């Protein structure tokens, strides 16, 4: 897994390439928490190039969302493929996150 951190206005965008699973989830967590520490409050994780996520990856997103909300920020998700959407629906996490079909849609009104 590799990820890239970009800026779209005042939104921090993280592109996740590959798998977000138990062996690498801490890298994403650290990257987001570092940005949160610097004062960033709006975060978007773009899954356009993500293969699959396991429960640890889902758990990291839940944990980050909670920490960001505690700082009056927001974490949005975008561009989930069919497999990822299925995992979010099975675990009901689709009710916890704002999930957009595309990066552009997620950035609208952020």
């Amino acid at each position, binding site marked *: 897994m590799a990820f890239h951190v970009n800026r779209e206005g005042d939104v921090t965008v993280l592109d996740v390439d590959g798998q977000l699973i138990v062996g690498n989830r801490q890298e994403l967590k650290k990257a987001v928490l570092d940005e949160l520490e610097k004062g960033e409050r709006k975060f978007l994780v773009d899954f356009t190039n993500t293969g699959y996520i396991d429960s640890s990856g889902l758990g990291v997103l839940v944990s980050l969302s909670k920490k960001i909300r505690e700082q009056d920020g927001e974490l949005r998700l975008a561009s989930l493929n069919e497999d990822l959407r299925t995992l979010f629906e*099975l675990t009901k996490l689709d009710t*916890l996150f704002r999930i957009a079909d595309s990066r552009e849609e997620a950035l609208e009104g952020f």
Partner: protein
Amino acid sequence: MERELVFELPNDLGCIEEAVEFVVGRCSTCQEVARKLRLNFRVSLVEALSNAMIYGNGRDPHKRVRLEVTMEMGRVVARVTDQGRGFDPDCVPDPTTPRNLTKEGGRGLFLMRQLMDDVRFNEQGNSVTLTLHLSDGEALRGKASA
């Protein structure tokens, strides 16, 4: 024709992705079952291996995890065994309740049960056998959405 793969994996979370990709790559497949292998089997295997390494073996680097995969006509069966004392799988709470939805952990066994056709533990609770049927035309999205 039946094929069997057997691995003794080190208790290292970093080796899970490679092991799972190797196994999935060895499963003979056609288009109609590709998604079941890619989503249901792959994610469940990651969950079983990570549970074995983290909870079963307690992250002990000196312990190992045994992975046995059998590919038969129409189904794939994976058995993951750790060297821990085992646990009671019936005591794991439902992670989709409002109380548990915002917790970071607790979704691994739930996902296995949703994505596989059968999830069975031995009496000790340190070995889980996952079975996925590949040719029965069932919905691919897991039992919950079927």
